[in-house]
């Protein structure tokens, strides 16, 4: 038996050393060994070796596929390949996941990526595990400053880190006030202009016309609509420092207003996409604050409000203060710092963000590039859904997004969905839940590497 055991021992050690060697190979291939290449002065960052005519790879979601097709038609000489993915939808993190793996293997990055989320610059603009930041800086010599100036004011805030711009905004989602003129005239009310007006309107509605509502709080993006619009400092970042103060005046006040309206029934908890909302409230919406994409998704599809009834007004703000509004969405295009054909990437980026062929003709979102936005608004005016004057309101709202809201590696929607929504369903008021909400947000901040102030 001993001979068996000794030979099996030898065999065992041999097998072990073999696997250890293989594992070692794996380690070596996995080590990317920190690229400390010299900064290319022309572009402002360390570029990979440029190969003229190298086909560029673009990752888009299904809705942005027409952009690539339009680009191919407009620039047939530039070789371009594309892959569709889920667009990083709903915080799926696909973008970050794939880049994380590609960083580890040290090769295979795409040249351009479109993401539907706004906070990717928080990880894409920094070095990760020793690998150069994926997103290429755009305003340090790469793109023309004139071009960058053509975006709406504040549109590039989500991708600006320490003054450096890392991506281009595809569309804006500024919050405006929608109102149903037909109902307002019928009831004899005015369009609400301030948060105080909004509350007063709600109180009047509940007393005189119960059953009519001013919106819903059941969806996860409500913090952007109400708290961002109220300039409440509950989500603020400064580099790697994070702070949230749900006890601040604005925050408490807007929560109080929301609680009042929830209690008297003018704000409901059913999601805009739920069957209850479609069944019960379709024709009972008097006014509501919401982003510009409510047009298609909510009014025309979910609620099916006929044309000519809805008007667009200035965003709700505090009485006596300047107009500031929130923002709920807007995709971003990123260029890869590892790209080997940065010229083609530049042409592509400028095309997809500012060209009429895509942004005006094919895109359904409000373009972030000002000239394209005007064309888009003209097209909407032709469709005659809204009452006159909506375009000016949208443009001015687009320039009034409050810049005090932070972009972080995590989202405030999580806290709202896991704390506030269930709490409301159980009957607790938002004001009571404010400390718990703040704790959820700051906990999220801590695990994501922020120092909470």
């Amino acid at each position: 038996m001993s001979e068996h055991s000794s030979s099996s021992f030898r065999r065992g050690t041999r097998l072990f050393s073999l696997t250890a060697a293989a594992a070692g190979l794996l380690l070596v291939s996995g080590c990317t060994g920190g690229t400390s290449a010299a900064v290319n002065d022309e572009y402002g960052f360390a570029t990979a070796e440029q190969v003229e005519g190298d086909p560029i790879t673009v990752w888009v979601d299904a809705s942005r596929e027409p952009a690539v097709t339009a680009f191919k038609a407009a620039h047939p000489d530039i070789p371009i390949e594309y892959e569709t993915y889920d667009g990083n939808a709903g915080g799926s993190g696909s973008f970050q996941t794939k880049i994380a793996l590609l960083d580890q293997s040290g090769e295979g990055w795409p040249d351009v990526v479109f993401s539907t989320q706004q906070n990717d610059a928080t990880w894409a603009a920094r070095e990760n595990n020793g690998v150069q930041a994926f997103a290429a800086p755009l305003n340090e010599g790469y793109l023309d400053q004139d071009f960058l100036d053509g975006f709406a004011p504040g549109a590039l805030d989500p991708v600006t880190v320490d003054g450096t711009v890392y991506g281009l905004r595809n569309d804006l989602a500024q919050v405006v006030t929608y109102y149903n003129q037909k109902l307002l005239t019928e009831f004899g009310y005015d369009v609400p202009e301030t948060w105080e007006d909004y509350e007063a309107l709600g109180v009047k509605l509940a007393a005189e016309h119960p059953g009519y509502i001013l919106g819903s709080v059941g969806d996860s993006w409500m913090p952007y609509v109400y708290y961002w619009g109220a300039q409440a400092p509950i989500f603020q970042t400064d580099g790697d420092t994070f702070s949230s103060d749900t006890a601040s005046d604005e925050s408490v006040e807007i929560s109080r207003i929301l609680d009042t309206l929830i209690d008297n029934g003018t704000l409901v908890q059913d999601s805009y996409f739920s069957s209850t909302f479609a069944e019960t409230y379709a024709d009972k919406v008097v006014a509501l604050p919401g982003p510009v994409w409510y047009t298609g998704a909510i009014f025309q599809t979910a609620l099916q409000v006929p044309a000519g009834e809805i008007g667009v007004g200035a965003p709700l703000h505090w009485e006596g203060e300047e107009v500031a509004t929130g923002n709920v969405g807007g995709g971003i295009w990123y260029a890869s710092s590892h790209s080997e054909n940065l010229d083609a990437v530049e042409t592509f980026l400028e095309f997809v963000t500012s060209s009429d062929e895509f942004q005006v003709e094919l895109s359904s979102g409000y373009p972030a590039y000002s000239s394209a936005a005007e064309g888009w608004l003209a097209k909407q005016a032709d469709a005659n859904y809204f009452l006159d004057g909506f375009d000016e309101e949208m443009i001015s709202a687009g320039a009034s997004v409050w810049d005090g809201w932070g972009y972080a590696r995590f989202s405030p929607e999580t806290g709202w969905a896991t704390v506030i929504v269930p709490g409301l369903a159980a009957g607790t008021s938002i004001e009571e839940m404010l400390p718990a909400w703040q704790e959820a947000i700051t906990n999220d901040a801590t695990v994501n590497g922020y120092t909470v102030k």
Partner: protein
Amino acid sequence: MTDTRSIVTKAGVDRRGRRRPARLSGASAGGRQTRFGYVFVSGYTLLLLGFGFIPMLYAIYLAFTRNGQFAGLDNFVKVFADYRFLPAVAHVSIYILFWLVSLIVLVVVLALIVHGISARWLSGSIRFLYYIPGAIAGASSVMLWLFILDPTVSPVSWLLKLFGLDSFVQVLALDNLPIIFTVIAFWTGAGGWIVIMYGALNNVPRDVMEAARMDGAGPVNTAWHVQLPMLTKWISYMGIMSLAAGTQLFVEPRILSQASRGVVPENYSLNQLAYLYAFKQNDFSGSAAISLILLIVALGLSTIFILKGKLFERE
């Protein structure tokens, strides 16, 4: 009339009626068997090394290092201190309890019942019907559960309202989740296991069943004293696989998280936490630490099944 087939027992009886030792020993026969043994397992061993063993070693390496430097137990400490860790442990533990008990008990009972059906078409159809949900996985079922669990639109809204749940958000309250996940996992997983157990039951020799019948045993007694003991290995295998699936709870919470647009947290289970560490916080070492913890727990619990189910023994 005899042929070369013999009984399934420890000590066989060969053609000449002499007792044979259970294992064939002898240098030449053993050597040849050994050689061919290696040939037979070679393909699988390659895949095992490439996609199982070496990655596991790499994960262990990651768990004890940080950015290439040895870090001892730092990663584990960091993970334990994470405010999401203990709740996730609690969630997974409760879920495993519900899941294992319901799966093993119900699958065995259902398999026994289905096996007892004499009409072949009926038995086959029922097995098919029970299996269908197993074909729907992951992304496909997000939309399904979005509707099923919403009392306002669900086909089983009467059942939900019976429990006093009137809205989607109420159904997804944190306390209800272990039960919901068990239901979902059972719904998708039971059919497959019933098919396997059914096949295992078919391996119970007819004469043994007939002997029991002759002795006057009713269906329950037959099941308990005859069929179940012969299923031990299969049941313990099912136990281990379900344990593995349970500790690695990931798909169901993710589905519901998507369907509810965030009301179900994305860090509900430990495996989800490991995913977040790796792909959201870019901390592959922390992720590997969590995975290692999960592995050790699963291994520990599995030894119970292995020992009680004599999984490694051959007759």
